[in-house]
């Protein structure tokens, strides 16, 4: 029952985000567009490259979808509305999202094409940049909640949301999250300008539909994670709990897919330099500050 | 007889055997590192099995697992550091061509 509810809300969320992304890219709000393009993709022929690594080619998009769904499984939408409340939920989210990298490497290597392969390995470099910045802000969040369970993390924010408690961590986490779901300006693995679609270049038909859907799921999972860790999850006045988490997740995901397009694409080397020389010291400072506050003040 | 422990240890033994075969038979440094990783993974299985079925009240057993994971990371870092240096100077990481390292 819970699983069905979560899956249905996930589908609705993916649809709304697809509409929003279309609006951000093309400047027109077309509610029918995702349906039409999905149908078009399903009806189109699925081409196969020459001498592909067939196993990776087929498994890549599916693994991406599975990784996204597993990440969604530990995000609470309302009290009791969570697929599985693990005691190590925050860590499990990381573990599931680590397989986004594996899926993209598979999808890049599989079709035996230069653009795809460069896109896949580029994402590995990108991973080196964002990985620590996903984990370290979550450490600070868990520090305050004194638990890794996502439900406990939401409950710990009843007095003050983490976005006010640790704004530095929030900024770092959202930047890393944009890198994780390869949204502009960090869309290096697909990079429409210089890689001709990158990992998406060799995918057509049903497989491309799965790949795009999986990416929507990953975006929603990360928006859900941001809301859970920093924006108080389902907490809020007047409205019921599920409505609050729905609204917050949609706003965060909408901002993630639309605002980045206003910034020029970041070069890989520059991104690595920024995250290691600036991001990681800031994340360490964040952990230290949160630890001191948690010891001194009782919020 | 604790059959679950036996099964887990048997898996560990099989992974150890496979890893040992790989380490001895492969000619490429990276493949040798993969064999070592398999052997260390076998050690991990054994440690967790010992913790779970013999001493579940002892958190130090879990700490050993973390140390082994650290060892895996260190082994990879150092191995790849050496591999890069060797590839740069000799253009290959084939161990058959590394006779001059023999004492």
């Amino acid at each position, binding site marked *: 029952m819970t699983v069905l509810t979560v899956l249905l809300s996930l589908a609705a969320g993916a649809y709304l985000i697809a509409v929003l992304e279309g609006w951000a890219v093309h400047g027109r709000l077309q509610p029918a567009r995702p349906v039409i393009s999905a149908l078009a993709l399903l009806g189109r022929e699925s081409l196969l490259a020459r001498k592909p690594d067939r196993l990776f080619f087929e498994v890549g998009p599916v693994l991406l979808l599975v990784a996204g769904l597993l990440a969604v499984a530990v995000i609470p939408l309302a009290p009791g509305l969570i697929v599985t409340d693990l005691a190590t939920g925050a860590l499990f989210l990381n573990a599931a999202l680590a397989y986004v990298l594996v899926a993209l490497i598979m999808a890049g290597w599989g079709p035996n094409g230069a653009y795809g392969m460069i896109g896949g390995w580029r994402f590995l470099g990108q991973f080196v940049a964002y990985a620590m910045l996903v984990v370290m802000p979550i450490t600070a969040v868990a520090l305050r909640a004194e638990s890794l369970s996502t439900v406990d993390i939401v409950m710990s924010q009843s007095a003050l949301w983490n976005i006010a408690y640790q704004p530095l961590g929030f900024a770092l986490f959202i930047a890393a999250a944009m890198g994780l779901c390869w949204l502009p300006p960090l869309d290096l693995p697909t990079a429409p300008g210089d890689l001709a679609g990158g990992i998406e270049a060799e995918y057509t038909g049903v497989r491309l539909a799965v790949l795009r859907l999986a990416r929507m799921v990953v975006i929603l999972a990360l928006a859900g994670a941001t809301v859970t860790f920093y924006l108080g999850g389902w907490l809020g006045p007047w409205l019921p709990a599920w409505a609050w988490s729905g609204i917050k997740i949609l706003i965060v995901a909408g901002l993630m897919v639309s605002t980045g397009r206003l910034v020029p694409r970041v070069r890989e080397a520059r991104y690595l330099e920024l995250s290691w020389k600036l991001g990681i010291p800031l994340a360490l400072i964040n952990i230290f500050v949160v630890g001191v506050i948690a010891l001194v003040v009782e919020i | 007889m604790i059959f679950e422990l036996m099964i887990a240890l048997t898996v560990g033994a099989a992974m150890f055997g496979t890893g040992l*075969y790989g380490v001895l038979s492969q000619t490429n440094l990276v493949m040798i590192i993969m064999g070592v*990783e398999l052997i260390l993974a076998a050690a991990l299985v054994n440690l967790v099995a010992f913790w779970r079925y013999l*001493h579940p009240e002892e*958190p130090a057993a879990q700490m050993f697992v973390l140390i082994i994971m650290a060892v895996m990371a260190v082994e990879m*870092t150092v191995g790849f550091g050496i591999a890069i240096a060797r590839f740069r100077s000799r253009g290959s990481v084939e161990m058959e061509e590394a006779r001059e390292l023999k004492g």
Partner: protein
Amino acid sequence: MIVPMIFLVFFGGAAVWFGVVVFRTHSMVRSALALLFSQTAVGLMFLVMQAEFLGVLQIMMMATEMSVMAIFMVMFMMDPGGLGAMDMTHQKRLSLWAGGIGLGAALAVIWLADWGPAGTDIPGAAQQTEDLGRELLGRSMLIFQSAGLTILTAMVAATMVAIAPAKEQPK
């Protein structure tokens, strides 16, 4: 009692099978990812054995480590895609004997030893994580710190070894 055994056999079989695939496939990327799935199966075995934190940690860490492994394979191999079906092994007979003897000796010890009574009260997942944290920052702090320091030293040393030597300036 029987259900965890079935899962242990299943995931253990997967771990060993993928471990064998590592050395049997010609494609280097496949080889690295087979190792990844072997390690993931090990992580799933941890989950079956109720070591939740360690299982999730193993699954997370190995995804990264083995992806890095994959790119090094592609960098250093002559034939990363495995289309040429090169033979990259030596002393096969000796290795098979060594692996077989190691396996046989371990199996003999495992199946002949008397393991004594099984531990019974397994702490819950949250309790385990807390115990582990207290262990790491209490009694075992020195060991943990030296492990961290070892990683740092290894990182610095490996980077030093790997950096290209600067070209000498002509005088």
